């Protein structure tokens, strides 16, 4: 039995080295062609804006000399595609950054919040989406997004993102991207396909060229998973500890029945956008607005935000 265990250990060591060399070779192959990498690992792309968002987030977090108050928006695509941080900042006088991302579950939002507060930038306001649609989401899509479509895959929070989803493929992608950074001559190919959208800055993506779809379908509302509920509690704890004004944001969806009772039980203010006066024609699906709808929607949110927190608007 000892002999078997010894051989298994020996092989495990060999395998670890093999994996490193294998990843380094794949990374090196990008110097000549992206084909092998593309076949084995996901390649970064601009769709969804996370590649640019991660770049700008770093810049935004480093800018600590700004006198204005800072606010962070977290949530899924109903945040980063529907809320224009420029309008919100202009109306509230708070420098908002939209760090929403595809299918961002509360567990993902927590990782981003931890990253932001640990960066040293003082953040006074946090708007975190409690999008019912993502209540039971595993966080895989968002984690994958922040790992693969990150301009700096070795950023500390990408590790925590990989830990959320608990799939070996994400860990492999993460490890590969880390190894790739040390391989001289390796090249980063970025898929520039945008599918009818524009990255407008500050994490905001605006869609104007989308075909309307599934508007008549009823949006399913799942139960909140324990993982996301615990993340929600942790977000509240951090906000309390750091004196961050927390706002729970309930996004407007078409054909959805909301139940914000869970959130109402928590100690936090709710900005309920379900009643926002946005016409159905401004949605291209049940979740997302056309560019022309986002301005109206964000202005309404800004007004509600000002009322909710009794803010005196100042010009940025």
């Amino acid at each position: 039995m000892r002999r078997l265990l010894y051989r298994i250990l020996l092989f495990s060591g060999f395998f670890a080295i093999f994996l490193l060399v294998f990843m380094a070779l794949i990374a090196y192959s990008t110097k000549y062609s992206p084909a092998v990498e593309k076949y084995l690992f996901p390649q970064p792309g601009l769709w969804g804006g996370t590649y640019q968002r991660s770049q700008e987030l770093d810049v935004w977090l480093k800018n600590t000399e700004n006198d204005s108050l800072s606010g962070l928006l977290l949530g899924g695509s109903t945040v980063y595609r529907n809320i224009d941080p420029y309008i919100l900042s202009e109306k509230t006088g708070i420098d908002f950054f939209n760090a929403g991302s595809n299918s961002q579950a509360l567990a993902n939002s927590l990782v981003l919040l931890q990253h932001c507060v640990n960066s040293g930038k003082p953040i006074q306001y946090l708007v975190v989406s409690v999008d019912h649609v993502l209540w039971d989401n595993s966080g895989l899509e968002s984690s994958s997004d922040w790992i693969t479509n990150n301009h700096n895959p070795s950023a500390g929070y990408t590790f925590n993102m990989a830990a959320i989803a608990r799939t070996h493929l994400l860990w492999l992608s993460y490890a590969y991207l880390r190894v790739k950074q040390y391989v001289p001559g390796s090249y980063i190919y970025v898929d520039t396909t945008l599918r009818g959208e524009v990255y407008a800055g500050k994490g905001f993506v605006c869609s104007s060229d989308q075909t309307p779809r599934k508007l008549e379908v009823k949006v399913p509302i799942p139960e909140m998973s324990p993982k996301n509920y615990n993340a929600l509690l942790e977000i509240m704890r951090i906000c309390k500890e750091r004196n961050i004004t927390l706002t729970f944001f309930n996004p407007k969806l078409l054909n959805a029945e909301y139940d914000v009772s869970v959130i109402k039980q928590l100690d936090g203010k709710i900005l309920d956008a379900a009643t926002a006066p946005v016409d159905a024609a401004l949605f291209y699906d049940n979740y997302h607005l056309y560019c022309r709808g986002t301005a109206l929607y964000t202005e309404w949110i800004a007004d509600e935000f000002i009322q909710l927190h009794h803010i005196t608007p100042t010009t940025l």
Partner: protein
Amino acid sequence: MLFNSFDYLIFLPVVFASYWLLQRNLKLQNFLVLCASYFFYGSWDWRFLFLIAISTFIDYSCSIQISRSDSARAGKRWLGLSIFANLGLLCFFKYYGFFVDSWIALFASIGYEMSPWTLSIILPLGISFYTFQTMAYTIDVYRGKIEPCKDYIAFSAFISFFPQLVAGPIERASDLLTQVVKPRRFNYIQSVQGLRLILWGLFKKVVIADSLGKGVAPLFNHWADYTGTDMLMAGVFFAFQMYADFSGYADIAIGSAKLLGIELRSNFRFPMFSKSVLEFWQRWHISLTKWFTDYLYIPMGGSKKGLAIAIRNVFIIFLVSGLWHGANWTFIIWGAYQAAFYIPVFAYRKVYGKPMIGHIHNALLRHIVNIGSVVFTVLVLSVARLFYRAESIGHSYVMLKKMVTDAFTPISTPQYLWYIGILIFIELFIRRDERNPIPIKNTFLRYLYCSALIVAILLHIDSHNEQFLYFQF
């Protein structure tokens, strides 16, 4: 619990470690195997554990009564009870719906509308496998080939032995039970062989079978969007998917059993290199073929009552085999279709005493004919797989029709041929021995090869594990 799941990755080492810690106490070791097996099966659906427990109890009791019977007639009665109970459970859970539906369709065709008493029955995992294993045991006791087992725990462990419980190999008591009742000692070589078989089995399942499965599904589900060549490819891809999936399962089963110091019989001997359908069935699902031979073909007279009777028996075996695989007319057609290719070769061998190729003396020509025969057999089997995979006879018919009327068109999904190529290359040039999938002597090269297999598995395995195809039987 699936072999290709994270759960099994935890389960097997825990069982392995506990099992060898108990090696001084055979009874406890067998009890552990029994508990592990019931846990393994129960993790899928605990309710059906009762079926295994009932089947075990009936066959244990009947076999003891058979041995105690003072007359052949009494023994026969106990045997009849055992067969009736086992087949009764199998028929109820597997064939009830099929027979009721067929009955209704038959009456509807002559103008009678029937309001049927239908039930929504879930097919218990692996029922066809363990039912055949228990029946073989009782028949063998009746025939006096083996003594009945008096150790209930050991017997239960034999029936429910988790590595082969849900998809075989269908073991005989003379092979497996005799190992279960004897003390086992840890054997390093056997364990290493086991680990290698598990690795190779996982590679076949996860990398080859599941990848081919992704190519097969759209070809069958959206056949109207594809060409005739694609229909042929659907059959070819599915034939190789089935092989990689089922033999991958068998390798993991044999490997897991080896880790517990138990040898299971081989279920495959490179069937995709068969030169005829007859040879294919000597190399494919060997334990089932042997079961049908011993418990159906020979009792019906086998080949001893003349060629015509032998052909009739072969044909019946194929129809029953089709029905064993699934409760659908497509499986029966699948069986009949294969019989049509099996019987001529079978008859030729019976009449002339040797295969057709035995008449070719030129070495080069023999070689060419051999390769041609392998390709032809694969194509025949691939067409057979259309019946096997299609939802109905109508579905398989339109696919076959398209194959003929829209032939000689480019393949839409040639990328899947790579997986077949890799499998053939490894089986032809590296594996060679079905019990020793990694016969590389140089340690560095062997480690390199194993590492490559693991990386390929890691890159292909899905977070939602694909079930093994033969679990449905």
